[in-house]
């Protein structure tokens, strides 16, 4: 039933690689931002909150366009990367950046929802025991946030698997090089009779995300520290 061409197989590997990398990048980033939003008392918090939410609110294509302006040959960051010898546009790194930006708001909101339930007294206790700010962050807040990190990671991974609009602008649609599953599906759907190819790739996406869901549940069950004690 599965009907996969060699470039499709490459697209699958690439998608898995991009989604995984994007998730691994946004996990620490999302954790840090969620921390700031949940605990710190900086003044421009609402601004940060709004900014983080942008990629959720704007159409992905617009986000892709903005990233192109930023990271392109003439963009401010693009020049920086060029001097470093790093090529972002038209490479899989571009896809990673696109997916990371799109997935970040989902990550941040999940982690924050979990973090806001951590007992402040625990943090107080940790500080008085000599743990500094960052020490407390890593030795206490991080492990207690695992359930929400897992949720955030799952959302980000899944969204990355399906991300199309921003990726195609930043990474292009080059089979074998930057073509992820959604882009390959797009190619199929724009060809009369391409349905079966598109369907096969959809199924693969579904299977991958399903595996991630199962992993999610397993980690979740192990890391909810007695929050729900069954009588």
């Amino acid at each position: 039933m599965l009907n996969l061409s060699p470039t499709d197989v490459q697209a699958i590997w690439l998608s898995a690689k991009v989604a995984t990398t994007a998730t691994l990048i946004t996990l620490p980033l999302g954790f840090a931002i969620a921390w700031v939003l949940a605990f710190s008392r900086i003044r421009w918090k609402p601004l940060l909150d709004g900014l983080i939410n942008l990629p959720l609110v704007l159409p992905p294509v617009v986000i892709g366009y903005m990233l192109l302006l930023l990271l392109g040959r003439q963009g401010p960051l693009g020049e920086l990367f060029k001097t470093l010898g790093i090529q972002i546009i038209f490479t899989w790194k571009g896809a990673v950046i696109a997916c990371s930006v799109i997935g970040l708001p989902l990550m941040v909101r999940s982690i924050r929802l979990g973090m806001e339930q951590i007992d402040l007294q625990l943090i107080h206790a940790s500080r008085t025991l000599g743990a500094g700010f960052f020490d407390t962050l890593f030795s206490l807040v991080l492990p207690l946030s695992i359930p929400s990190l897992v949720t955030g990671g799952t959302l980000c991974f899944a969204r990355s698997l399906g991300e199309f609009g921003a990726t195609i602008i930043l990474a292009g649609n080059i089979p074998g090089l930057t073509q992820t599953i959604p882009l390959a599906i797009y190619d199929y759907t724009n060809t009369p009779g391409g349905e079966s190819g598109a369907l096969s790739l959809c199924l693969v996406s579904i299977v991958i995300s399903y595996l991630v869901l199962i992993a999610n549940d397993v980690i979740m069950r192990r890391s909810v520290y007695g929050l729900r004690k069954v009588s």
Partner: protein
Amino acid sequence: MKLEVSLTKHLGDFSFDTDFCVDGERIGIFGPSGSGKSTLSNLLTGFLTADRGLIQLDRRKLFDSDAKINLSPDHRRVAVVFQHAHLFPHLNVRKNLLYGHKRTPASQRQLELADVTKALNIDHLLKRNVTQLSGGEKQRVALGRALLACPDLLVLDEPLSALDKQLKEQIIPFLRTTLRHFAIPYLYISHSLSEMRLLTDQVMQFADGRLQQITNADTLERERMAGNRHGYLNHLTLSDPHEVDNLISYRWGANELFLTANERLQDGLFGLSSKDILLCKKHPHAMSARNLLTGTITGIMPHKGAVGVELNCNGEILLAQVVSQAVAELELDIGKTVYAAFKASAFRRLT
């Protein structure tokens, strides 16, 4: 330890405004709910920042608004034990205990894990998950965790108030000996005078965010004698136990006392309520009470309906409590001699 505090802090309607300097190792903070005890604790640890003032612990300035000094909580070396243990749920008991210890410079580590687990009797719990501990075990682990951080000052903010009476009574002697043993200066915050008497030398009494007086728990308890259901609790240091028939004989200064035998054979501090002492004008002959001491009355102190009678029994002081009619009937007066009778079962071991 010398602690100098002079702070002002406004929290909504509540204002905390206090100025004191205490010198000692075992200091109590006593006061009704809402009097600012936890506020003081938070100001000391650094979770609240005062509007203005100074905190100086021995020679270190922890906070000084004029000099713009405000050490962060992890540099203050002030550890806290809260009402609820607040153990870290993702770490087992051992890792909880070592949390602060690992973060203390080796030069300042005065205790090792084994010392503390032994003193607190939690050796067997080390590998447990903290959700599997009873309330008293949790609180002992929290105490151990704070001790192992070897702080310059330990703040105990009603550490026992969430425990039931029985557990409290088990844990207080424990606390007393361990805190003594490890010689870490502490502030003990509590509503309970009996805890204060066992655990502190001086007591600072707070009300409405202001220091009322610096006194001691014994004095406070005498003042409250009549209102207290158990009367005033005499603290007797007993020694040299040995069994006599079914009882245990102890030395109390120059006196011999008999206690029932469901007791360890060990020196210690014992409580004897002023209400458990019967006074007789004449020797009462055959009587079920195993202890009968002759005492000279050295003080008569009426407190509301009750009258405290202070006796000198061969050099030891005992406070008995009788109703006012009895004073007249027994013709009690300073300098007179009476017989104080109390049962072998009236004693309660405190340590």
